[in-house]
C-alpha cells in the first residue's frame, strides 16, 4: 500500500473561492475536494492519508509560515509520495504547488509530482528549481481537463512511490526541467554528431542531444542618429561592483541588480572596485575594472564631444550574470529597461562576460 499526501488550494479542496483565499494552511484526515477524485484514480494500491490545503493569497503573503506548516504536516505523516494540484492555468496556485513540492523534496527527501498547463508561470519556477525529485505533468488549460490530470497524477505518483526509474521528459511526458543525465550510448559521440550533421544537410529530421533554451524574437530597435546628443548608459553582467561588494552579490545565481553612481568618477581605480562573478577568472577585471565598465574610454570620448556632455547616465547597472536563469534574467532585464526609460536613456552599452 502506497501512502500519499495531497496538497490543494482552498478552492480545489472545496472550501470556497476568492473570498476564502486568505485561509491559512489546514489539514483534513483522508480526502476532500479534488483529493476524492485522486483517491478513485489511485484505487487499491494507493491511499491518501491526508489532504493539506491553504488559501491562494495566504500562501504568497505568508510564505515562510505556510511552508513551515506544510512541511510539518507532511513530516508527521511520512507519506511515500506527495501530489500537489493540478493547477491548470491558475498562476498563484501553480507557483505555490511548485514551491511546496520543491521544499518537501529538498527538506524531507520525499518525491513530489504536480501538474499544470505549460503556460502557468509555475512552470518557469519548476525549471529554475530543476529539482530531480520534483516532476510536473502537463494539463489542459482549464478544469475541463481534471479527470485526465488526476489519472496521470495517480499513475505517476504510484511509480514514484515504488521508486521506479523515471526516464527522460520527452519519453515520460512530464515537463522537462533541463536536467541532463549521463547515459551509455552504443556509438561514440563523434559518430552520432556526424549522423546528425548529415541528416541536417539532407534536411531530414534529427534530434539534438543537447536541446537549447528557446528564445523569443524581438525586432531590432531603431538606430540612434546623432549619437552625441543621445543619453547613454552602461549595463553589465561582469559583476564589477564597489570594493567590498556592499550589496552582497553572490558569485552565481543572483536575482537582483544594482546601479552604482559614477557621476563624479573619471576612472575606475583598482582597489576601489572589484568583480564578483563565479563564471570567469576575475583577476584581470580586479586589476582593471574598465574591462567590464569602460569608463576611461567613455570619459575621453565625452571630453572630445563624441558623447554629449552630461549625456552619459551618472550610474551604471550591474548583475553578475553567472548561472542566471533565463526567467530571472528576463525579469531583471525588464526592471532595468523600465528604469532606464524612466531616466530618459536611449542607448545602452551592454558589456557581457
Amino acid at each position: 500500500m502506497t501512502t500519499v499526501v495531497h496538497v490543494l488550494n482552498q478552492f480545489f479542496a472545496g472550501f470556497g473561492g476568492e473570498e476564502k483565499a486568505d485561509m491559512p494552511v489546514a489539514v483534513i484526515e483522508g480526502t476532500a475536494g479534488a483529493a476524492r477524485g485522486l483517491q478513485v484514480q489511485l484505487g487499491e494500491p494507493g491511499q491518501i492519508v491526508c489532504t493539506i490545503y491553504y488559501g491562494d493569497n495566504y500562501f504568497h503573503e505568508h510564505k515562510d509560515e505556510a511552508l513551515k506548516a506544510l512541511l510539518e504536516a507532511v513530516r508527521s505523516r511520512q507519506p511515500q509520495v506527495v501530489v500537489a494540484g493540478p493547477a491548470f492555468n491558475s498562476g498563484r496556485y501553480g507557483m505555490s504547488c511548485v514551491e511546496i513540492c520543491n521544499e518537501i523534496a529538498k527538506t524531507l527527501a520525499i518525491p513530489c509530482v504536480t501538474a499544470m498547463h505549460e503556460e502557468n508561470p509555475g512552470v518557469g519556477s519548476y525549471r529554475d528549481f530543476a529539482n530531480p525529485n520534483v516532476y510536473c505533468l502537463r494539463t489542459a488549460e482549464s478544469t475541463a481537463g481534471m479527470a485526465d490530470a488526476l489519472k496521470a497524477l495517480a499513475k505517476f505518483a504510484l511509480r514514484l512511490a515504488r521508486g521506479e526509474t523515471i526516464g527522460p521528459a520527452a519519453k515520460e511526458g512530464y515537463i522537462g526541467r533541463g536536467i541532463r543525465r549521463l547515459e551509455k550510448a552504443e556509438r561514440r559521440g563523434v559518430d552520432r554528431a556526424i549522423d546528425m550533421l548529415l541528416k541536417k544537410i539532407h534536411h531530414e529530421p534529427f534530434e539534438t542531444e543537447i536541446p537549447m533554451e528557446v528564445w523569443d524574437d524581438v525586432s531590432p530597435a531603431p538606430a540612434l542618429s546623432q549619437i552625441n546628443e543621445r543619453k547613454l548608459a552602461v549595463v553589465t553582467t561582469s559583476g564589477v561592483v564597489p570594493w567590498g561588494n556592499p550589496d552582497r552579490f553572490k558569485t552565481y545565481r543572483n536575482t537582483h541588480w544594482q546601479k552604482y553612481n559614477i557621476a563624479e568618477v573619471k576612472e575606475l581605480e583598482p582597489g576601489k572596485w572589484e568583480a564578483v562573478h563565479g563564471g570567469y577568472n576575475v583577476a584581470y577585471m580586479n586589476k582593471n575594472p574598465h574591462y567590464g565598465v569602460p569608463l576611461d574610454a567613455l570619459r575621453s570620448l565625452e571630453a572630445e564631444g563624441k558623447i554629449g556632455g552630461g549625456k552619459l547616465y551618472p550610474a551604471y547597472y550591474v548583475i553578475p550574470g553567472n548561472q542566471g536563469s533565463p526567467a530571472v534574467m528576463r525579469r531583471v532585464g525588464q526592471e532595468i529597461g523600465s528604469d532606464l526609460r524612466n531616466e530618459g536613456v536611449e542607448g545602452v552599452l551592454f558589456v557581457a562576460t
Partner: protein
Amino acid sequence: MSKELEKAGLTVAIVSAMFPVAEQVRAHRIVKGVSIPHPCGDPSLSPELDARLRREIVQTALKALETEVKEPTVFSPNMP
C-alpha cells in the same frame, strides 16, 4: 537580458567575447569583445595600447548604436 532592454524600446550594443551566443539568442547589435574575462581590452598589451583598444571597442559600440540593422549583426573593432 539585452533583449528585454530592446523590448523596452532601448537601442543596445552588446560587447561580448561570446558573440556567437549573442547571435544565437538574436541580440541585434553585437560588438566583438576581446575575451570572456576582459571583454573591453587586452591585459597583454601595454597600458597605453590597452586603453586605445578599449576606446576602439567603445567607439565601435557607438557606431553600432548609430547603424540601422535588420538582423543580428556583428561589429568588429580593429584589434591590434
